[in-house]
């Protein structure tokens, strides 16, 4: 029996004498995807432990991660602190922000003694129950699908050695994909900035470890990327860089940049280092900033361009990537930026970053719509990458004229 069904049953009992009963519906299902994680949810539930042990209150956890609290003879003031704790936990989420608005988006309250409220809550609870049924069916389906496919066992120290071995022996050249970053100026044709070369990870996973979820541990995955780096470098080293027209970009670990493998790659690249952008990840940079500084200077000295990758809109609120002094900073386009009209502090921080780093350093990526491009242009940003850009590139390259490498990396 689902919690939703239990709740409906409870409601039918309350209906007989609803005096001093009320309900609070907490809409955790409306949180941003990044905040809708099971372990967050589990901890949020525990916030109410005290209340449930000490007052006449029951908490129902819904399939869609909403919470429903049914209380009897409890003061509203006694419930507020618990709701506020939840609000504080998700303080970065727009859902928790709107307390000063006309209606709170996080919670809805129902006085079950009022006929009108009771009816409204009953229909809300019924809707939750219908949703639960749908979710259950979906889960069942997904589970069947996933049995042979993605997810699988977590990556652990036990299977890591074997997978690492596999990675060293598996053919990967055909798994290297490309995505173009272009420069857009209003009224002009787009110009190529570089083509990012990256490994199609889901396909790679199918090839080396179909039963293992490579992404379950951030650290062990990072370890595997060090092996991958070496493989990618050896594939890319087969290029004749004198013939490479458009700059390319590669994702590498800082450790790789300082290794013998990169030295060999550097020899192949020769005088063409200006055609290569090296993308470094934030997590790698923060692990050892001193080494990052050294690697960055070394790369720039040899003529490579350094790009700081993995900056989310959220991360921008907590540090200014311009202080890392790279040539480029990739900032992921996110819904957060669209919501800025109401909350200007985030946008202000981003403007500061753009100003510090210089607008020619910023690349907006994961661009999936024209809106994202317009938003970027309005801030003076002109470099973009993403699905939407792929479409533009497709349209650009189709006409009779071959695309000319009009843009050199780093040129303003």
């Amino acid at each position: 029996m689902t919690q939703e069904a239990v709740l409906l049953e409870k409601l039918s009992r309350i209906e007989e004498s609803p005096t001093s009963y009320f309900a609070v519906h907490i809409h955790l299902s409306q949180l941003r995807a990044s905040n809708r994680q099971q372990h967050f949810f589990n901890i949020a539930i525990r916030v109410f432990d005290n209340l449930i042990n000490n007052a006449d209150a029951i908490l129902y956890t819904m399939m869609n991660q909403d919470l429903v609290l049914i209380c009897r003879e409890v003061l509203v003031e006694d419930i507020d602190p618990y709701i506020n704790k939840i609000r504080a936990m998700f303080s970065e989420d727009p859902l928790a922000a709107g307390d000063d608005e006309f209606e709170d988006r996080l919670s809805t309250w129902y006085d079950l003694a009022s006929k009108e409220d009771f009816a409204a809550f009953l229909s809300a609870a019924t809707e939750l129950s219908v949703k639960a049924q749908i979710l259950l069916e979906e889960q069942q389906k997904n589970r069947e699908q996933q049995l042979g496919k993605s997810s699988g066992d977590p990556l652990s120290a036990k299977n890591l050695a074997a997978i690492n071995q596999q990675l060293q022996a598996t053919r990967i050249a055909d798994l290297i994909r490309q995505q173009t970053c272009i420069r857009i100026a209003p009224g002009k044709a787009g110009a190529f900035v570089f083509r990012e070369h990256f490994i199609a990870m889901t396909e790679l996973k199918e090839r080396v470890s179909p039963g293992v979820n490579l992404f379950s541990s951030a650290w062990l995955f990072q370890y595997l990327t060090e092996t991958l780096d070496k493989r990618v470098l050896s594939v890319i080293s087969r290029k004749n860089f004198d013939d490479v027209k458009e700059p390319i970009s590669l994702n590498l670990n800082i450790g790789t940049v300082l290794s013998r493998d990169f030295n060999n790659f550097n020899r192949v690249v020769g005088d063409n280092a200006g055609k290569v952008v090296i993308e470094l990840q934030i997590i790698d940079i923060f692990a050892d900033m001193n080494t990052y500084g050294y690697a960055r200077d070394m790369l720039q000295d040899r003529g490579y361009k350094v790009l700081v990758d993995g900056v989310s809109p959220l991360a921008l609120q907590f540090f200014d990537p311009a202080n890392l002094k790279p040539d480029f900073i990739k900032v992921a386009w996110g819904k957060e930026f669209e919501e800025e009209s109401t909350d200007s502090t985030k946008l202000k921080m981003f403007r500061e970053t753009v100003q510090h780093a210089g607008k020619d350093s910023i690349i907006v990526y994961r661009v999936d719509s024209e809106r994202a491009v317009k938003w970027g242009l309005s801030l003076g940003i002109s470099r973009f990458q993403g699905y939407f850009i792929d479409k533009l590139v497709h349209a650009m390259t189709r006409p009779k004229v071959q695309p000319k490498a009009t843009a050199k990396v780093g040129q303003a």
Partner: protein
Amino acid sequence: MATQPDKLPSQEKLLIDYVRRLEKLKEGRGLAHVHLSKLRPFNRREQHIRAAAGTFDSLIKDMHGQLFTIKNADLFFFFKSQVKSQAETVVQKIRFMFGDDPLVEDEGKDGREFATWYDTAVQYDEVVQLVQGLAEAEEKRQSEVRNRMDARQRLKEKQKKGEPLTPSVLAKVEEALSRADLSNLVRRQFICVVDSKMVPEQKFSELYISIQDLRETILPGVNLVSNRWLFQHLTETLDRRVLSMLMKTDAVSISGDISFNINVSTLLSDQFQIFDDNLSAARRGAIVIELQKEDIFSDLAAYLFAREFVQTKGYRVCLDGLAMETLQVIDRERLGADMAKIVWHPNLADGGDEVQAVLKRLLERDGPDRWILCRCDNREAIDFGRSVGIQQFQGRYVENLIAEDGRRRDLLKLKRRIERSSEPQDDE
């Protein structure tokens, strides 16, 4: 083959040579040190520096001076005194080029200068020191990192610290960890306020597992920290063991406030929930949770959630492992941590006025209770910390101070006892 800049004599080396030769010619010459390294990064691109350096061209062509552009983009222009006013005009021109940069806008504030002028006849020693300091800092930084990548160094490391950690060894270590008794590997180090007389006052103590001893106990001959990602993974296993140990033993009843290092993912796990359930509300207020910066930034959303969760429960959160390079990038206040730890390294003291100013500003903003200087191995660390306003310290040197203080107190007690026992005799 690419040009290998490190095979050519670097500008730094040329600059040192030049200054050495200058000793005989120092009369009637001056130096303009133009601090382009302090410009904002977007003003400090290659083309900017080249343009700035280019403005000296006519003076150089006429043999009136010599220019060095060093790695950090600073310009060193040596000139004959008769062209000093022309040199000043050139520097003024460069200043105009960067008119929108805070360096120019804020000139004069807290000792900021766009250019520093020297009379080499009078200030020759100062010039020598300046140039040598720059070159040494660069050399040191290069050798520090290069050492780690060098095969010879790796071999040396292996001989000294053991085999590098590999996935299969990691699996064995984790297996062994699940059975090992860690309670005798727990170490404790105090965070103390140290006053001007070097007398320590204990604030709280950090509990940690000695990785060195752990290695000796479970897998001698393996260097557990040789791969940072594998080690980070290992710490997640350690976290769980430490939590269960803290609950089982009377570690929870250890006197005074305590702190320990933990991963964000562990804070969100069941193990931490169980640990938390076993604590009284008062005890939570006496616990400081230390988190690593790379862990925080690997999943910010998880960190923010976990931080809020533990802070509302009453725990305090401490940002661990900050260093000179990170101080400028990561802000404790923005991250909402209650405290932050800076790892002592001589480069903090070598960093000069800029690093000091950054630290002083942070200490003034936050107050001394929020900052700790850790891994203090010597008195220099304490002196440096106190000079920027830090009052709380941790490290081997602090442990020595505590021991010394203990001995002093014992002696004092002994002295009093002797005095007391001798008193009646005096009366007689």
